[in-house]
Every structure is written in structure tokens, then in C-alpha cells.
């Protein structure tokens, strides 16, 4: 097999594996939303405060998923190692 296409294929496969982060992210964010809904149902007058706290917590919990997304993007589009390999291999 052509080494370059092997490298490309491996890059795309690892990008897909990197995006498996999203499972844990979605589950965690779902739990945060459920806790927020329950808190609002228990005490409706704290809805504004609960909503802003929930949004901030969702942003923090999404961090790990974003790490995976950034790595996937770098692998797919802007792989520095492939550019270097191309430069070296001529």
C-alpha cells in the first residue's frame, strides 16, 4: 500500500476515534440539564439563577468534547506531520 495514503487513512481514522469524546460530553450535559430542570421544578422562583448557572456549567462540561473536536480538525485539515512528510519525501 502506498505509504502516503496509509498515513492519510490513519489520520482520518484517528480523527473519527477522537470524536468519540462526544458520547461522554452528551451524557454529562444531559445530566446537568436534568438536574437544572429538577431544581427549577422544586423552586420556581430561582429559575433565573438556575438558568445562568446551568449555562455556565454546560460550557465547562463541553470542554472535553471540544478538545476532541479540535484534535480531529487538526488531524483532518491541517496535519503538520503530513505536510512535513510531503516536504521531506519530495
Amino acid at each position, binding site marked *: 500500500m502506498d505509504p502516503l495514503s496509509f498515513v492519510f487513512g490513519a489520520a482520518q481514522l484517528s480523527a473519527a476515534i477522537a470524536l468519540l469524546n462526544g458520547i461522554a460530553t452528551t451524557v454529562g450535559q444531559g445530566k446537568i440539564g436534568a438536574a437544572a430542570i429538577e431544581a427549577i421544578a422544586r423552586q420556581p422562583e430561582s429559575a433565573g439563577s438556575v438558568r445562568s448557572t446551568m449555562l455556565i456549567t454546560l460550557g465547562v462540561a463541553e470542554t472535553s468534547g471540544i478538545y476532541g473536536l479540535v484534535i480531529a*480538525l487538526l488531524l483532518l485539515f491541517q496535519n503538520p506531520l503530513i505536510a512535513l512528510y510531503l516536504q521531506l519525501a519530495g
Partner: protein
Amino acid sequence: MHSFLPLQILTSAPDERVFGLDMQTLIHIIAQSVNILLLTALLAYLLYKPVQNFLKKRSEKIKTQIDQAALDMATADTLRTQYKENLDQIEQERVEILDAAHKSAADKSRKLVQAGQTQAEGLYTQALVDIEKEKEKAQDAVKTQIIMLSSLMAGKIVAHTVDQETQDRLFSEALTELEATSWPT
């Protein structure tokens, strides 16, 4: 040099990339930090500090105004209770004075009425007594007239028929008879 890969990676000129970790990145981080520090200094000096100072001054002014207003309200309250007390007192005195005046007026009128009544009764009894006296005087006058007339008559009659002794004896018998009978009153 071309065979040592890590050095090539570290010193290659960046060529339109998205993310990389080399000397350029460090230099850019320092450049951006300088930019942000400059921006913060200017913006804080121009925009944030003056507005913050102004807000603080205004809140202090409002606080002193509120304190002053609370003080004024307290003095106004004490003054108000004081005036209310004074007014109540004056009201009470007014009621008392009016009552006293009414009572004294009522007393005086009653006394006057009583005095008038007693005077009237006195006049009335006096008038009755006067009437009695007049009646008795009239009765006495009538009595003396009758006595004079009868004695004249008797004297004349007696003078015709009887002499002096029997005239005197008849005269005293008539008197005792007259004294015995009751006068018409």
C-alpha cells in the same frame, strides 16, 4: 541539517497554519500579551475608572441624602407628636371652659328665676294681707256707722218715750246684745 527531523520541525517558518507549537507561537503569545496589556491600561483609564468613580460618588451622595431624610423624618415625628399633645390639651381645656360657662349660666338663670318666684309669692301674700286689712277696715267702718245710726235712732226713739235712766239701761242692754251676736263678716 536536513536529516535531523525535530530541529527542522522546530525552526521551519510557519506556512499558513492553524495551530502549531514552536518559536513563532511563543513570540506571538508575548506580542498578544503586550497588546492586551496596552488595551487594558487604556480602557480602564478611559472608560472604567471614571464611570466607577462617578457611580461611587453618586451613591455616596444619595446615601447622605437618605440619612439626612431619615434624620428629618425623625425630628418631624417628634415634633408631630408634640403638637398633637398640645392640641389635645387645648381641646380638653376648651371643653372644660365651655362646660364651666354653661354651668354657671344655668345656675345664674335658675337663681334669677327662683328670686323672681319668691318675690312674686311675697307680693301675692302681701296683697292678700292687704285685702284682709281693707276688708276689716271696711267692716269696722260699717260697724261704727251702724252703731251710730242705731244709737241715733234709739236715742231719738228713747228720747221720745223714755227718760234718761231707762235710756241708759236700754242702751247698755242693746250693747251687750249687739256684742253677743256675731257680726256678719
